[in-house]
């Protein structure tokens, strides 16, 4: 199965209200700021318990190849449950996490936000573009741009992220590591 990032979901009768679009935007901005500030526990609070985070590695293939640029089941940068993301983040909190100390200076830039109805009532598809800018030590600088598809769920505690797919542009990650989320 190929994953087409341009695929448009079947439009239901529902439409996102201005208020909802505003709320989703605020959620995504808060999400970006919490990552910039490396407040991971608060970032995890934005997610539902069944949250899945998928960041596949793009493959450069001919247009006529039936296998896609992105496909599930391949090696991925991330293909994690919430618990597994928390395990990763727990390393960053250790005093011996050498590559995190001094800390990286992060900017997560979020733009191009669109909100559409998802399949189930109470769920919305939020598309966005994110650019991660990292600067470390003296002069190490890395950029990574990506298009995102988030499943946003209405819960008693407000809007939460239930599923995030991140489609990065780099097939060779032009950095030695990737020490944040997107």
């Amino acid at each position, binding site marked *: 199965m190929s994953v087409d990032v341009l695929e448009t979901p079947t439009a239901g009768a529902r439409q996102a209200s201005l208020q909802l679009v505003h709320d989703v935007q605020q959620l995504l901005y808060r999400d970006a700021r919490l990552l910039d500030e490396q407040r991971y526990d608060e970032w995890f609070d934005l997610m539902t318990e069944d949250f899945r985070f998928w960041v596949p590695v793009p493959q450069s*293939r001919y247009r006529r190849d039936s296998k896609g640029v992105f496909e599930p089941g391949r090696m991925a940068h991330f293909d994690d449950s919430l618990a597994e993301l928390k395990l990763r983040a*727990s390393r960053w909190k250790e005093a011996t996490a050498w590559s995190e100390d001094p800390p990286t200076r992060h900017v997560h830039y979020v733009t191009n936000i669109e909100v559409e109805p998802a399949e189930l009532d109470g769920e919305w598809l939020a598309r966005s573009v994110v650019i991660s800018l990292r600067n470390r030590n003296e002069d190490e600088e890395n950029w990574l741009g990506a298009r995102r598809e988030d499943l946003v769920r209405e819960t008693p505690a407000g809007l939460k992220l239930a599923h995030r797919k991140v489609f990065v542009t780099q097939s060779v*990650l032009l950095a030695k590591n990737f020490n944040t989320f997107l």
Partner: protein
Amino acid sequence: MADTLQARHASPAADLDFHRLVDVDNGWIDRRIFWDEGIYQLELERIFARCWVFVGHQSQFAEPGDFVTTYIGQDAVIAAKDRKGGRQRLPEFLLAPREPGVFRRGRQHPPVHLQLPRLGLWAGRGPARAHEEEQYSKCATFDKSKLGLHRARVGIYKGLVFATFDPDAPSLDDYLGDYRYYLDVLLDNDAGGTEFIEGNVKSRLGCNWKFAAENFVGDAYHAGWTHASAAAAIFKKDVKVNVERSYQANINGHGTEFGLDLIGNAMGLAEPEVVEYLKENEARFAERLGKLRSRMVGGMSSSNVFPNLAYLTGFNTWRTWTPKGPHEIELHTWVLVNKDMPDRLKEAYRRGVSRTFSPTGMFESDDGENWEHCTRSNAGVVTRRQKLHYGLGMDSKIEHEEFPGAVYKVQLNDANQRAFYQRWADLMSAASWAEVPARTGADQ
């Protein structure tokens, strides 16, 4: 004609005394080998254009016409399965294209064939090609059979596909030698053989390729301190090496440092099913590999096949350190699994390796930091004057009744790094393969 087309350019660095730069008898290494552009250019000639270099796993070439693009040194190559023949008649072949970087793997029915946009004479069809052929038929100096892509020698060892551009290189079996005993720990512990999980992760590190290779060939020492944070997060305690039951072994510059603990590395995946699998199958592994090797299948270990293929038992990550200059590499990582393993276990390996040994992984991010700083610090002339110490475990060589090669007691040891650099100096000093001594352990 051959002289015109494939002249070898001697580098000024060829006159250096590499066995002095790499003093393995006393355990000192001159830092210039990690920094100097001339030495690097000679490495491309005498290491990468000469050795058997890993280009893929047979499982990536299931159908005729399947191909991947990769690099041997800085030469861009296409590794492809011949379109005409099946597995019986023609093995995979390998070509070096003139235009790097535009191809990726194609595999489907009907197969997606290679596109060679600037090689109409070779790959084109129809009137355009006929027109080109007509023009070139009047050109006296043009001999199509002597131009085009270079065919490499291809060798396969239990699923791993290697290639060399040197016609004088020994056979792949001789090149690997008795190191095959150690390779079999992962390649031959199950009757069904192995495969790569589809896809790989690639990243760029600002380091000399040898720092990565030596890290995997024998640097057990760094693990406890460098990876303390990952160990604390995953194991909730420090990782200790078993001094009495751990070893280093090397043959022809290939090396492995290992314990006999069955699950030491596998625990790091944080995938309990993998550990269960190893425990349940220990006896089956022993039927194929013998008792001692069955204890290595997921054990605490790291290994490097000279020059730039590395792997970890337990994690089952395989990787290449592809040089992009004296101070940069491209790291390619794959996951190797037993073909007959249940899908849920393959999935555990796939996701576990992403979480540990990939650019986003909990172990790998600290390694990259080390290798970059080990490389960059050599920009300083005063820094460069001070040789690096590789003298740990000088007296630790032992005779072992089963383990082949040069065998050393205790994983915390520089023995394999010395052997890696000895092989490096052997190749860098030699004008041809005939001058390269075999390093089987008897003379070390």
